[in-house]
């Protein structure tokens, strides 16, 4: 399972970085979201994938039986942040498209103000 997750994370990173190198804004945004999903899976697999109970700890059970809740809460936070950022960059790309009629970063305009 860990091997599979590691491969998936690696593929997501590679695809995300490749898409970020493209010139079109839509691809850049897809690349960013792949990258953030890749890092979420990496957190999950780096912290150890185990078959264990949910961490509702009751007396009399050894702690090893429960899963570590922290990586999941980290991922949850990262997903929320990533969602907000994704929404913002989509709006930004939409506005670029509205004002220039293109989503190619090189045709947006001259670099100088």
């Amino acid at each position, binding site marked *: 399972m860990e091997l599979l997750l590691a491969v998936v994370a690696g593929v997501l990173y590679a695809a995300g970085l490749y898409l970020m190198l493209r010139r079109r804004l839509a691809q850049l945004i897809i690349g960013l979201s792949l990258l953030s999903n890749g*890092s979420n899976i990496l957190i999950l697999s780096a912290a150890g994938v185990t078959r264990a109970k949910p961490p509702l700890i009751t007396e009399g059970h050894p702690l090893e039986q429960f899963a570590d809740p922290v990586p999941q809460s*980290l991922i949850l936070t990262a997903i929320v942040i990533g969602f907000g950022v994704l929404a*913002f960059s989509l709006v930004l790309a939409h*506005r670029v498209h509205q004002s*220039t009629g293109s989503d190619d970063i090189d045709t947006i305009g001259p670099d100088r*103000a």
Partner: protein
Amino acid sequence: MLLALPILLPLLTAIVLHLLPQRSRLLRLVAFAGSLFVLGTAAFIFVRVQQTGILVLQVGSWPAPFGITLVADLFSALMIVMVSVIGVAVTASSFAGVDPRREALGYHSLIQVVLMGVAGAFLTGDIFNLYVWFEVLLIGSFVLMSLHRTRAQLRAAFTYVGLNLLASAFLLTAIGLLYGQAGTLNLADLARAWPERRTPGLDAALSMLFLTAFGIKAGLFPLFFWLPASYHTPPAAVGALLAGLLTKVGVYAMIRVFTLLFPDPDASVYRVLLVLSAITMVVGLIGALAQRDFRRVLSFNLVGHIGFTTVGLALWSPAALGGSILYVLHHMLVISTLFLVSGLFLRQRRTTDLNALGGLYRSQPAVACLALIPLFSLAGVPPLSGFVAKVGVITPMLVGGQYLLAAVTLCVSLLTVLSMARLWDEAFWKPAPVASSASALHSRLALPILAPIVFLVGLTLALTVFAGPVSTLTMRAAGQLLDRNTYIRAILGEEVPRAAR
């Protein structure tokens, strides 16, 4: 409670700004009053830290490795004071007038959000919380940068957003790997647990990931291209806010994380950082010489001088680190002042292109002399604060036998003098180009636009006069940074057994 105030007050101000009737005079007053309060609490925190040592707040009373910790040591306290000073100057500069459309879109509360994010990043003692504050200040600055619709500004905003999000993804990756190995996120707990658990391979991978993530945010050599591509488009006050604070947050995070987690001065990452810092200085200043726009010259200077602030970490001695901290403080003040000065040109000539500037000395000699101080301070002309800070950076190099590095640094300083002298010559001294109309030339600059500049220049002069006590302070801050055990003990209490995984 005290430590949470620099975060809570801007949040409160931002909320109040949304609830108030949207009359610009009222909004400006409230934002300004909010920043003054933050400055007050920051000064109080600073005094307390100086008297009693490291201050710690366990948020929600959760004991240290489990909850989120806010920490203020001397370095954090100094940075918080600087942030609130720049916050006051930036909010004060809005009295000179803000584009009404920006104001309607929440300009004032966005500035407060950025200030909150920066303060949070400086105060947190938890590495995941650091990531969250980075995102808070990034979102605030993204929106501030993209409130405009011109093509150049949209393009700049996209470059800025894309590269900073990439840096955040790298940071998140590094944090995930770190948690997987060490099983904790509290910086003090990590500082205790990580050096025992690390393996050479993981150590190298993590340190390079952190270096890349913070390097993009700080603007180190191969990763700085977003900065000059974006900082010359927003209005002057926003430029001053972003230029003064955001790169320094990257530098701060780099110093904080590396001193705690990689306490091995011989690690290869420090040799990499040393070379990168030197190249950053050279490339930044050569880039600055090639530019013909006031704010682009400043952006490249900003990049070049980041090298001065990271080189102290790479050299890993109290004196070098202290010199770098002093340089950070000086540079925050001066670069913000200069971006505010560029607002004068925008006001008078509607451009910062050096070809269209000139003749300001003839029409307004006092303003030209005022601008001379930050320009020459950045260049490091004695006796101004830049000189003191540069001495603080270069002396440890000479003492440590790094003669080549010292030579590079001195040459770069010379280039800065050239670049700054050219800026002043082109913007103020040379005769005005014929194209500009006489009415624009002789329009007086009002007090509201000059007051924040005078305030910051006054502080630069104060930093010059009190250079002795301030450099003693930064040396103490550096000593505190390198003494990890005091930090760990202040947060986790006396010799707690390490939290089991």
